[in-house]
C-alpha cells in the first residue's frame, strides 16, 4: 500500500518493486485489452459508432447548461429531487443532511467514482453512519482499508490469492482463491446489508436529459438492489454525465462495456426514472446530487474535452505506464492517462503537476478511447501550463532555453555538438557511455548512452560538398 506522504517517484519505485502487483496487473490489463478489441470487432462499424459517441458527448458538453436544466426539470417531473453541489464539501453535506433528516443509520453503496472523488464514505462514517460498499471490488478494498486503483476494477491491484486471504482474515471464512467461492462469501454477507439499509447510494453512468432517467451499469446486479431495496436512493453524478435522449444513451452503451471489459453489454443495465409512483418497486425517495467540483471551469479550455470521458477505463489498460505501476502510484482517485489529465485539471491547487509527466506520449490511450479524447495533447497542454506558471523544474527550463539559442544558430549548434562530443569521448567505452552524471545518471542505471559520432551527418555533408567543389 502506498502512503500519500511519498512522492510520485517514490510511489513508482514502490509499485515497480511489488511482485504481487505486477502479477495482478499482468493478469488483468492484458485480458481487458484483448477483450476490448474483440468486443469492438462485434460491431459492424466500430469506428463509426465511436465517432457518433464522440459527437454526442461533444454536442452535450457544448450545451451542457441547457441539458442539465432539462435533466433537472425531468427528474423533478417524475418525482425526484436534484441537488446542485459546487464542490466536495457541499456534496457531502447534502448527503449527510439527507441521511440525518430521515434518521438513516445504514447506507449501502454501489460503485461511484464521484463518491470516491469527494471522499463521501469518510464523511458519512464521521457522521456516525454505517456504510457498506456492495460492488465486489469496492467491498474488497473497503475491507482492506484501501482506495480503488482502477476506474472500473477497483481491486485490480490485488491477486485473487491476496483477496482470498483478506476475506479469511476479515470475515473468518476458510481461505480460498476460487473466485466463485469468494463471490458467494461476499454475496451472503451483502444480502442482509441491502435489506437493512435505509439509504442506497449509487453512481450514475449517464443521466438522460429528455426523460430524467438514470442509467447505471453493473455486472453484479448490486446497483439494482442498491437503488430499489432501501427506502431512499441518492445518486451521485458529475455534471458532465448527461446525455440528451435515450437514443444517445443507446449509442453510449454500445461503446461503454465493449471498451471497458469487451462485453457487448454489462450483465445489468438499470434505467431508473423517478421514485416509486404507485407501483410496488423502487425507492420512496430519489435524490440526484449533481457535482461540479471544478468541472464547469474546464469547459472551453485546452483540457475541456476530458469531460467527454465515459469512465470505461480502456486508457488505463492500454497505458504502458499504468501497466507497470497500477493506479495507487498516481496518488489520486482517477489514475492512468485520464487521471493524469483529470486530477490536475480538477484540483488546480494540489500537488499534481507531476502526473502529466508520467507519460511517454505513446498515444495508446488516444487510440483506445471510445470517444477519441486526445489525452496526449492534453498532457502536453498541462506540461506547458506547469512551465508557464513556473512550477516546473528550473533546470529543464534553462536547458531548453540554451538548447533553443543553439538550435537557431547553426554555427553555435555545431560548436555545441563538438563540445559535447569532446566531453563524451573522454569517457566512452566502445562507443558507449556506461555512466552519466546526475541528473542524467538515471539513464545509465539501466542503459548505456551513445557518444556523439566522430563525424556528424552535417560534417559528412560539408565534406561531401567541399569534395564535389574540388572536382
Amino acid at each position: 500500500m502506498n502512503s500519500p506522504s511519498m512522492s510520485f517517484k517514490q510511489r513508482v519505485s514502490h509499485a515497480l518493486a511489488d511482485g504481487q502487483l505486477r502479477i495482478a496487473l499482468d493478469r488483468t490489463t492484458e485480458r481487458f485489452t484483448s477483450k476490448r478489441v474483440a468486443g469492438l470487432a462485434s460491431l459492424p462499424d466500430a469506428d463509426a459508432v465511436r465517432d457518433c459517441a464522440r459527437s454526442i458527448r461533444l454536442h452535450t458538453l457544448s450545451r451542457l447548461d441547457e441539458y442539465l436544466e432539462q435533466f433537472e426539470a425531468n427528474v423533478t417531473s417524475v418525482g425526484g429531487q436534484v441537488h446542485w453541489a459546487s464542490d466536495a464539501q457541499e456534496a457531502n453535506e447534502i448527503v449527510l443532511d439527507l441521511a440525518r433528516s430521515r434518521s438513516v443509520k445504514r447506507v449501502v453503496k454501489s460503485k461511484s467514482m464521484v463518491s470516491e472523488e469527494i471522499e463521501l464514505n469518510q464523511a458519512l462514517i464521521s457522521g456516525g453512519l454505517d456504510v457498506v460498499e456492495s460492488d465486489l471490488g469496492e467491498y474488497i478494498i473497503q475491507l482492506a482499508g484501501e482506495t480503488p486503483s482502477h476506474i472500473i476494477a477497483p481491486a485490480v491491484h490485488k491477486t485473487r490469492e491476496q483477496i482470498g486471504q483478506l476475506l479469511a482474515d476479515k470475515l473468518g471464512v476458510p481461505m480460498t482463491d476460487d473466485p466463485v467461492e469468494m463471490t458467494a462469501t461476499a454475496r451472503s454477507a451483502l444480502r442482509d446489508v441491502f435489506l437493512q439499509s435505509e439509504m442506497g447510494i449509487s453512481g450514475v453512468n449517464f443521466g438522460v436529459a429528455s426523460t430524467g432517467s438514470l442509467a447505471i451499469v453493473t455486472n453484479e446486479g448490486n446497483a439494482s438492489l442498491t437503488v430499489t431495496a432501501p427506502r431512499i436512493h441518492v445518486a451521485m453524478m458529475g455534471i458532465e454525465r448527461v446525455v440528451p435522449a435515450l437514443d444517445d444513451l443507446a449509442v453510449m452503451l454500445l461503446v461503454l462495456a465493449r471498451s471497458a471489459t469487451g462485453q457487448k453489454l454489462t450483465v445489468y443495465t438499470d434505467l431508473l426514472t423517478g421514485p416509486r409512483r404507485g407501483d410496488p418497486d423502487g425507492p420512496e425517495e430519489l435524490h440526484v446530487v449533481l457535482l461540479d467540483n471544478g468541472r464547469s471551469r474546464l469547459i472551453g479550455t485546452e483540457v475541456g474535452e476530458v469531460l467527454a470521458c465515459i469512465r470505461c477505463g480502456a486508457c488505463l489498460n492500454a497505458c504502458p505506464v499504468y501497466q507497470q505501476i497500477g493506479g495507487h502510484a498516481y496518488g489520486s482517485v482517477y489514475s492512468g492517462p485520464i487521471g493524469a489529465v483529470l486530477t490536475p485539471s480538477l484540483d488546480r491547487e494540489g500537488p499534481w503537476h507531476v502526473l502529466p509527466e508520467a507519460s511517454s506520449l505513446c498515444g495508446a490511450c488516444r487510440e483506445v478511447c471510445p470517444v477519441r479524447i486526445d489525452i496526449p495533447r492534453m498532457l502536453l497542454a498541462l506540461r506547458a501550463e506547469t512551465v508557464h506558471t513556473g512550477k516546473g523544474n528550473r533546470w529543464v527550463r534553462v536547458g531548453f532555453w540554451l538548447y533553443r539559442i543553439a538550435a537557431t544558430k547553426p554555427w553555435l549548434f555545431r560548436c555545441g555538438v563538438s563540445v559535447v562530443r569532446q566531453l563524451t569521448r573522454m569517457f566512452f567505452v566502445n562507443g558507449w557511455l556506461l555512466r552519466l552524471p546526475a541528473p542524467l545518471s538515471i539513464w545509465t542505471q539501466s542503459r548505456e548512452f551513445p557518444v556523439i559520432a566522430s563525424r556528424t551527418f552535417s560534417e559528412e555533408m560539408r565534406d561531401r560538398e567541399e569534395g564535389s567543389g574540388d572536382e
Partner: protein
Amino acid sequence: MSETIFSAQLFATCLVDAIRPAAGLATLRLLERLGVKVIVPSGQTCCGQPAFNSGCLADARAMARYTVDLLEKSPAPIVVPSGSCGDMIVHRYRELLADELAYASKVERVAARTYELSQYLSDVLKVQDVGARCRRTIAYHPSCHLLRGLGVRSAPPQLLDSIADARCVSLPGAEDCCGFGGTFAVKMGELSSAMLDRKLDAIVESGADTVVACDAGCLMHIEGGLKRRGSNVSVRHLAEGLVESE
C-alpha cells in the same frame, strides 16, 4: 528509374546528425539509388520536439520557426528519417504556430510536403522493393509517433519483407512503447527502464538478430538497453537495413 524525376530535401534530425549519422547517410544513399535528387539544406538543427514535449513552448516555437524558414526555401518534398520529428512537423507545428499569421501559410506548405522516410518511399515513390539483400532475422519495432501520430503501420514492415534473404519475425507486444519518450527517459527514468525491459524481453523472445525501427530516439534507447544486457542483437534504422546488399 535512371532518370531523376523526383527531388527531395533531407531533414536528418538532431539525433541522426549527432548520434546516428549512419542512418542519415543511408537515407541519402537509398534515395539517390532510387533516382531522387536529394538536397540536404545546410544549417538544419532540431525540429523542437524535445522542448515541445517538455512544455517549453516558447523555445519549441523558436525552433519551429527556424526549421520552417529553412525548409520553406525549396518547394521539394521534405523527407525525415524519424516518425516523431515527422509528426512534429506535420501535426504539431500547426498548433504551435497557430497564432502567428506570418507563419500560418508557411507551416501549411511545409507540413503538407513533409514525409517520414517509409511514407515517402511507399506513398510518393510507390516503391515496395528497394533491392536490398541481407541475411538477417529482423524484428520491426513500430515507434509510437510513426504509428499513432503519422498513422504509418504497414509501409516499414512491407519494405523489410522485400529484403532478399532476410527473415522477418513478429515482435510480441510490438506496438507497446519502448519507454523512451524523450526527456521522459530521464525525468521518469525508473518507469522508462521498466518499459524498456519489457521491450527487450520481447526482442529476445522474438528470436531476431536485428531490430529495426524508424526513429533514432527509440533505436538509441533500445540499443543502449541491449548493450547493457550484453546482447548481440543489432539495432538498425530502416534506412540502414534497406541499403544493405551483402
